[in-house]
């Protein structure tokens, strides 16, 4: 890219920024970086330029880069939820491509800044992750690459099992466990006079030990990472540290998992609006249209989140701009409030509520959506009723699309074994993966681990004791 191109790009960005301001988009200061393809793909594979090293990222990177080299797919940009917001543009993008991308990225940033799910995310994550990477590097030097790698393998296997709920305190399992000292604090420094403190304590009734054992944890705990970090008896300090850091990274990424459809829909909605407001030549318009359609192209076997999100936003705008007679009378909906409404939706909803609240029969028909499943060797369309389509979409977005697993008992059999429960809601787990994931949890917990799930409507318990697997119906 010549300095002349650079000037042109800066000029275009200034124009786009002005248009975006006019539309009321609200974003962080922007830092655009122009990067070669392998760098963009590195960032794509790691999720963040500064993230720690791990072979699984290398594997993803290799796969993505190969698809790019063979011309099968292309990432045009990458945008980071941070303040200031970093956006990485692919070196070699044409000016018109960059215009679309900059518009798209501005809307992403607006979403990051204003959507409620993102309100707790760490906006300095670029630096935090760099620090994490540095610390992990340090541990690798101290305890050895293999050791650290194996531990990270285990953590990554359950990394999605955090509790990102907005009402929950960031740290701490809850007061009920307060009397159960976390494993890491068990070794207190002793001075020889500790018994003096006991004089102040109220006398405990002797019978307490004979009472029914209290549950631990008192309520099922969804945050597997936090629970293991606090109570695993065998973790070393550096392991706890890595666990904490990786949990932080997952909590940072979580809102993105929860708002994939909305976020992409929102960005696609705005890049279209902004591009329409620009003064394009005929040739530019054609190039823009080609790129735009390649972004929002519907696909047959999975839903394109760009397309679906865009269509729902447009539908909401239409319905609030032109409410029906009934909506006006019963809901007091004023015409012409479409824009306001979509800004409100982008602030308060996540994919789950977005689909549940705004998917309509009309949309399902217009988009020709259907439910399909495997019947024998064939994948068949089995349902076209819009409520079922909507519900199926909602199910697929529950918990970011991951199985919901909780710690049921951290002291199972009174021997400190870990008992996990999969909250079965109609979709079975991949059993081979269950059997291969349990050893990782065993590596973290250090004692036998169990997972209860449901197969063909019957509860089943998978166990792994460090040597062998066991599977039994309950």
């Amino acid at each position, binding site marked *: 890219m010549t300095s002349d191109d650079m000037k042109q790009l800066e000029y275009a960005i200034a124009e786009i920024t002005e248009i975006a301001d006019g539309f009321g988009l609200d974003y962080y*200061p922007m830092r655009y970086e122009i990067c070669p393809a392998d760098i963009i793909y590195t960032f794509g594979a790691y999720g963040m330029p500064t993230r720690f*090293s791990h072979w699984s990222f*290398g*594997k993803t990177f290799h796969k993505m880069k190969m698809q790019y080299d063979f011309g099968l797919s292309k990432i045009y940009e990458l945008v980071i939820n941070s303040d200031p917001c970093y956006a990485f543009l692919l070196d070699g993008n044409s000016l018109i491509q960059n215009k679309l991308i900059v518009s798209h990225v501005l809307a992403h940033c607006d979403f990051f800044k204003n959507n409620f799910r993102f309100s707790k995310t760490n906006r300095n994550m670029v630096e935090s992750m760099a620090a994490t990477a540095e610390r992990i590097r340090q541990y690798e030097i101290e305890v050895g690459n293999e050791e650290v790698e194996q531990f990270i393998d285990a953590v990554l296997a359950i990394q999605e099992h955090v509790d990102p709920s907005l009402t929950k305190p960031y740290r701490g399992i809850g007061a009920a466990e307060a009397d159960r000292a976390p494993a890491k604090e068990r070794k207190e420094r002793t001075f020889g006079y500790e018994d003096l403190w006991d004089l102040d304590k109220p006398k405990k009734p002797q019978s307490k030990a004979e009472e029914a054992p209290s549950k631990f944890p008192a309520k099922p705990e969804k945050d597997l990472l936090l629970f293991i970090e606090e109570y695993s008896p065998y973790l070393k300090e550096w392991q706890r540290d890595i666990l904490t850091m990786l949990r932080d990274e997952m909590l940072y990424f979580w809102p993105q998992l929860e708002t994939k459809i909305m976020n992409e829909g929102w960005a696609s909605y705005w890049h279209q609006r902004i591009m329409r407001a620009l003064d394009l030549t005929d040739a530019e318009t054609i190039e823009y249209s080609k790129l735009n359609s390649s972004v929002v192209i519907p696909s047959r076997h999975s839903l394109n989140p760009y397309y679906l999100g865009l269509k729902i936003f447009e539908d909401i705008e239409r319905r609030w701009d032109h409410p029906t007679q009934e909506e006006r009378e019963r809901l007091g909906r004023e015409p012409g409030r479409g824009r306001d409404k979509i800004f409100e939706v982008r602030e308060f909803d996540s994919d789950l509520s977005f689909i549940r609240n705004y998917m309509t029969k009309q949309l399902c028909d217009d988009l020709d959506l259907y439910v399909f499943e495997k019947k024998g060797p064939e*994948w068949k369309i089995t*349902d076209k009723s819009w409520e079922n389509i909507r519900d199926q979409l909602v199910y697929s977005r529950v918990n970011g699309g991951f199985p919901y697993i909780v710690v049921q008992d951290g002291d199972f059999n009174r021997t400190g074994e870990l008992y996990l429960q999969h909250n079965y809601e109609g979709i079975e*787990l991949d059993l081979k993966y269950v059997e291969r994931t349990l050893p*990782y949890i065993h590596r973290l917990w250090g004692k036998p681990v169990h*997972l209860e799930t449901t197969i063909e409507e019957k509860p089943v318990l998978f166990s792994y004791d460090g040597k062998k697997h066991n599977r039994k119906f309950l």
Partner: protein
Amino acid sequence: MSEPMFTVSREDWSLHRKGYQDQTRHQQKVRDAIKQNLPDLVTDESIVMSDGKQIVKVPIRSLDEYRFRYNYNKSKHVGQGTGDSQVGDVLGVDPQAAQGPGKGEGAGDQPGEDYYDAEVQMEELQTMLFDELELPNLEQKEKENVVSKEIIFNDVRKKGIMSNIDKKRTILENLRRNSRDGSPGIHRISPDDLRFRTWEEIVTPQSNALILAMMDTSGSMGSFEKYIARSFFFWMTRFLRTKYEHVEIVFIAHHTEAKIVTEEEFFTKGESGGTICSSAYQLAVDLIDRGFPPARYNIYPFHFSDGDNLTSDNERCVKLITELVKRCNLFGYGEVNQYNRSSTLMSAYRNLHDPKFVHYVIREKGEVYKALRTFFPKRLEGSLAQ
């Protein structure tokens, strides 16, 4: 607005190598995993059946990123049509499930989905495997037969035989000299301009090997037994080809009679009837005596059978084997014995004690690799191997 809300920059990223470093780490893990899985891979159909392919897909079980996930095949999904989708439309067919029987061991409900396919160069795989093998009892054979002469014209000199004159270079030299002297053009060729091509004799030592692949094709050899034999011969021929320039392989199939067959027939044709192993051995002995003198060939007969030989024939077999062992570098007998029966042939062979006679009983797929290592053991002092 006074301060710009954005900056555009372009930096030098050439030192940012993280992606490539981790990619290398991943590939290294893939290689380690392959090494660990060699016993399974040796009998993997996709490899044994991949004649000639440069890159093979290798199933690796340990490198997927395992986590709790939903069973994709057992859940419902939402898709999008082009406007005319109907309930009952078929979107696609699972190739694995539709393939029907014949998939062998993968009797789980979704065969092939539980591992991650890594692409590996066939050559790399061979190097890894053959790294652990070595040809036993390799002998230096008669000199004139292990040496091949080749004449290559590869040098140009000022002196030589007129018939080998290099006209083009001679004229070039003349042109050069004339223009140096100030009168360009081709004229007055002097002896100084002459250039001759000369040759060199390249002597490459060459060795010959003969493999006698003998297989029992009697009725008792099922598809498993045949498959094992095929995997073994597949690797053995490949291994020997890396050691010898010319490997001759003769396929001998036998039931009560033995005959020489083509490679394709050898692996595909099923026959029935009883088993008389000595017929194959007799044919092998005849073959060696007729056309492959042991003085010039390294001979490796291998025989695969299920061990179900006609009892009265065993004595003859033992006698013929002692004959064969005299002529060859190594005689390998592999018995495919899935159910651990006591076989008549094996009990006869147990008493044969000759360092050149090696036998191995294969009970399951994974043991083909062990058989290879038994037949081609790497000696500790054998520093000759690559």
